[in-house]
């Protein structure tokens, strides 16, 4: 049988606490206990990347992590990427480049690409394709997604010089 545990962590820059079953997955806690349904479940087995979140700034599949493992850590979901309805430069690029079709994989892709750009502000195409290779998309063929990320990389490159 399972018991309940208390989890305290930072969720989208806010200190939060939840009492959850000890076998609950992080993705389910995010969706069910905090109502943040932007984190999607496409497979539940870490294969599709739709549930990607930032765990201490690193992209991870939240369907492969227990909720209690978030204790003491910093979690950012898609809802934490834009502030007050203002899109990040990357989100704006997704809109403008047509990188969104059905939208189900989009939150995970935005998270993976955000993590890449934090780590490597001016990635080349190969680095981009590698960084998003854990996020399956059945609609776009990835080309517009790559173009959106390249657009932000170009902005970053110009900022640098």
């Amino acid at each position, binding site marked *: 049988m399972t018991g309940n545990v208390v989890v305290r962590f930072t969720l989208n820059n806010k200190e939060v606490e939840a009492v959850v079953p000890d076998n609950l997955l992080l993705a389910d806690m995010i969706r069910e206990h905090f109502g943040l349904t932007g984190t*999607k479940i496409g497979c539940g*087995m870490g294969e599709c990347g739709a549930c990607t979140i930032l765990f201490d700034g690193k992209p991870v599949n939240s369907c492969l992590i227990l909720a209690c493992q978030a204790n003491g850590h910093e979690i950012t979901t898609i809802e934490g990427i834009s502030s007050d309805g203002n899109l990040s430069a990357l989100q704006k690029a997704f809109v403008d480049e047509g990188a969104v*079709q*059905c939208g*189900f994989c989009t939150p995970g892709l935005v998270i993976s690409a955000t993590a890449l750009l934090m780590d490597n502000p001016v990635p080349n195409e190969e680095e981009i394709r590698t960084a998003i290779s854990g996020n399956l*998309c*059945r609609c*776009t063929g*990835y080309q*517009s997604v790559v173009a959106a990320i390249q657009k932000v990389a170009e902005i970053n490159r110009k900022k640098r010089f």
Partner: protein
Amino acid sequence: MDELCVVGKSIPRPDAWDKVMGKTRYVDDITLPGMAYAAIYYSSLPHAEIKELNIAKALRVPGVLAILRASDIPGKNFIPMIKEDWTFFAKEKVVYPGEPIALIVAESKDAIMDAWEKISVVYEELPAIFDPEESLKPGAPQINPIGNLLSLHKIRTGDLELGFMESDVIIEGVYETDYQEHAYLETQGALAVPGAEGGMTVYGSMQCPFYVLKGVCMILGLPQHKVRIVQTPTGGAFGGKEDMPSLFAGLAALAAWSIKRPVKLTLDRRADIIMTSKRHPSRSYYRLGAKKDGTLMACEARVYLDPGAYATLTPSVLWRCCIHSCGPYRIPHVKVDAYAGATNKVPCGAYRGFGSPQVIFAMERQMDKLAREIAMDPLKLRAMNALRQGDSTVTGQTLPWSVGLEECIQKAAEASRWEEKRSRYPAEDGYKRRGIGCSFLHYGVGLGAAGSRIDVAEAYVQIKPDGGAVFAVGTTDMGQGMQGVLTQIVAEGLGGIAPQQIQMLPVDTMQVGDSGPTVASRATYTSGNAILDACEKIMDEMKKGAALLLKCEPSQVRAGGGKFFQESAPEIFYTFAQVAAECSARHFGLTHTGYFKSPDTSWDSETGQGKAYVAYSFGVQIAEAEVDMQTGEARVLDIWAAHDLGKVVNPKMAQGQIEGGVVQGVGYSLMEFIALDGKGRIQNPSFSNYIIPTSLDAPLVHSEIVESVYPEGPFGVKGFGETPLMGVAACVANAVSDAIGRDVDKIPMLPERLLEKMKG
């Protein structure tokens, strides 16, 4: 028509903002007070009588609310589709692994899992059949109440024997294609909510709300005015959410009716792959005759599609398969027979291309072999036989307009540097070898003669007093971008107002009349026309209002750029919002419904001739592939895809359809493979071993757009959501065959298969 303000522009789609912020709520994101969960208990055997179904132990699991069976259905255990064979629950016997037997309804998903383990079924196994050709042989076990031959279609034209006699060369071949799983990222799901006065509302992920409406009415025995179907934002479909949602919505509704609470039924990935439709596997036998100069003379084809156990959409899929079986070519003598023989496997259904990719693969491989035989360039061979305006198709349909194939050929050949590569690659040697291949395709837009009764659409448009507009249609956006494209058509239809002033309502069967299914690349064409009809009625009223303000006759009023003015004095104008306010104050009705019925088509199933479709979209695709001669691994490096889709409403979104469709086609060509065990059970129901292309597998896609307008489409639109996928397997197989110097006549081209080929 005046110059277009909004149509033809790459405006970002309106749903993109919510989607990038994670705000879009798909059906599984909705939780209602008192909501329970449901899951389907399905068969593990391909063909067996159900001797006992034991649910008593499962009912005692804490949290279990009900376990429902066929006998619990208040209406009929029958899912309305084309034939009357498909059921919500298996009847006395199961006919495929994955067939629903019972529905578990519980307070939680954990309780469902516990209950599942405690259900037991006693089966008596029956002989099963897994091959559609074997299925039609005398003495084969009969598995479907309507007989094993679920459908057959034919084409007859000219005199086949004469055609082959007059041919200098005859090419024969056998071609096989495998399943393709849709792999939409959002699995199937529905949420049923019992309403007041005995009604039922079902929210869900779907392509065809009016099919779902009929299904829910059938299982509950309710009339249509008591049932409301609302489409939730749909996370991909590709045909997979055409027929299946009737099953899931129907069962969710049964559960909600039974426990009188909201019930959500969503599938996990494993259940989705095991239980839902896929692209039909096929085996095709082709004979193609031609003169030495390349002129096509005769084509004979025998095509078998594997439909699985029930007919579902197979008769329509097989018809489209048959019509497209000889490619976009002039051929005087043709005989085609297409069959669907039932097998004890999951029913196949609609998948982007709808029966055509299988035969395009076969026919286009034939064309490459013919080219080699007569030592002619394969692109030139195709071009010299390609349909042009005024030609007749193999079904005897004359094409009076909108045949953009020649321009597609030119664009694709130039962009890919076809001639140079074609002559260079055969000389190359080494462990990695490159090849280049092409395919031509045509695609009948809309439902055609097979579905002319339901090729209709309705649209509702309402202007608010502040100049905003809301509209509703009966076709759906499943991710392809219909909402954006139709918003642009509304904006244009209302005299070029800003798309930001327009809001599309969720598709709701209580709001709009039956607009047929969202399939066959028909949404923009049919709903677009219905919208223009509604907009025309509104603009007539608004011109009356504008005339009062401009102090002229309504006939003198012009609209453009979101303004109303007289042609003689365009500098004096009233904005759309000002005129809307005036009309509102004067109680002019600015809410209208528009209608569209597709022009007539005809088909004679006896002669195999007729005007099959209202119009055709065309395409030429060229692939460059590289094969590792040691591992057998093939990669597609680049694909040039030139598509004639009529007027393009949004170029960037059209490009997105091409890129996405091509990459799905690359998956179909090289890696997507459903493994079955000896009982027809799917062995790889997950993305770990059913492999779809990732960002590292996708080739570069070079989109070329040709706009050969179709006069009866809105602004000249045809429709093309499916075509980018359709020719990919064919051109990739031709490129791979070119690279390895062996004929590859079977897809997917898995490394082990290519290695075997290269040994032989």
